[in-house]
């Protein structure tokens, strides 16, 4: 039996009276896109935040490869191979687009504590960054400040920074949001390619995309997983329809 790359075991999280996650377990295997859908406020982002370490679970375990990472700080988990994108674009506004990506690369390579060589003369880093920007179609915009990007362009930068981490696992929180129809199409293609590099835990409200991409889907409602299965299974699940999909003819 193949062992999962990322294994989330019985995670629970409460905010006061709000039960954000309850006993959530998901395994992520090689070459897989695992879709995570559910109504607004079901606890999807909370789950990602726990996996990446931004917030601490009340109980449960997170295992990456061989290692339990439940108690590691955020940066350690990132170093160990977790890349996440944020639901609300989280970029560094005062530096250029290119530098944003370089930052991610140097984080991945552990080259932060180099004090002498100017980044602008570091051709290796720059070339690598070009590659990642190309993949999201942002190369033309790489010399402007990240703060000057439009909303959709920020989303792209967000993804390209995740790519630059060359992670073991991608945690993507609504990467399509704000991309526009054209952007979503491109992104869909890209994610399909990406999964051969590392498995993806994908949160999306864009059903076209999720149904096109996901190998398996888990549905989270009120913090609990109410169903896990293939696209077809989920599509036809009556509970899911009622709680989430609605009458949208798919």
């Amino acid at each position, binding site marked *: 039996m193949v062992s999962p790359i990322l294994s989330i075991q019985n995670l629970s999280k409460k*905010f006061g009276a*709000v039960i954000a996650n309850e006993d959530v377990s998901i395994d992520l295997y090689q070459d897989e896109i695992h879709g995570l*859908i*559910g*109504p*607004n*406020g*079901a*606890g*999807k*982002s*909370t789950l990602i935040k726990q996996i990446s370490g931004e917030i601490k679970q009340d109980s449960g375990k997170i295992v990456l490869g061989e290692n339990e990472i439940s108690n590691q700080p955020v940066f350690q988990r990132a170093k160990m191979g977790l890349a996440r994108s944020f*639901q*609300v*674009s989280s970029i560094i506004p005062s530096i250029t687009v290119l530098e944003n990506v370089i930052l991610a690369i140097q984080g991945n390579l552990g080259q932060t504590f180099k004090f002498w060589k100017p980044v602008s003369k570091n051709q290796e880093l720059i070339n690598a960054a070009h590659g990642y920007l190309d993949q999201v179609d942002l190369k033309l915009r790489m010399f402007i400040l990240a703060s*000057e*990007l*439009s*909303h*959709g*362009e920020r989303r*792209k930068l967000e993804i390209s920074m995740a790519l630059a981490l060359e992670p073991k696992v991608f945690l993507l929180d*609504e990467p399509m*949001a*704000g*991309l*526009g*129809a*054209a*952007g*979503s*199409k491109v992104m869909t293609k890209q994610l399909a390619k990406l999964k051969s590099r590392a498995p993806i835990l994908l949160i999306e*409200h864009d*059903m076209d995309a999720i149904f096109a991409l996901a190998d398996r889907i888990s549905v989270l409602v009120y913090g609990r997983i109410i169903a896990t299965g293939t696209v077809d299974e989920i599509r036809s699940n009556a509970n899911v329809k009622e*709680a*989430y*999909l*609605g*009458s*949208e003819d798919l």
Partner: protein
Amino acid sequence: MSILLNVEGLKAWYENTQVLYNVGLTVEEGQVISLMGRNGMGKSTTISSILGMMSRVEGKIEFAGTSITSIPSHNIARKGIGLVPEGRRVFPNLSVLENLTAASTSGPWGLQQVYNLFPKLEERSKQSASTLSGGEQQMLVIARALMTNPKLLILDEATEGLAPVIRQEIWEAIHKLKDEGISILIVDKTLKELLALSDNCFILERGETVWSGIPSNLTTNIADKYLGV
């Protein structure tokens, strides 16, 4: 029907970079208008310009017959424009209820009405807006804009990040608003619903209006050329 909002030859700059070159659009009373274009083409900038949030604009912007190019933001809003900005700009340090009261004016839309529209908000009325889920925040900003009882509601990517069920509800709500006589200007990426709803469309390309017309005239050809669909 009279023209509510009329934009002609709009140019706009961020600091020294010009991003709008020649934008034109009109919204007639009671209409739903969609503004389309790929990422970075100037949709949001157009909206910011209408609301007086850009530091430098040129051209004509008229609302209800008077020019609003050089009056401060809050006065524009008071004339009856309600904004749902992109990127969920909730007031993070305020509770849900406070977010709503901050915007409230007297009129048909009050707390009870928006709570009816989004029951989830009532449930979370004491919660700090920064801790709401993405979709909940989105509901909040729509509700907040409604609290200003606008004549023209501007929605910039208002359904981003909403679950399909909720999104349908929003479309239905927009229908209802339209029936109540509120005019609406929408930017959204879900073409299908948008077109079903709109009376008229404008497409932007690099800061210029390059196409306008009724939805049925929007051929796949044009959609492919300007929207990449």
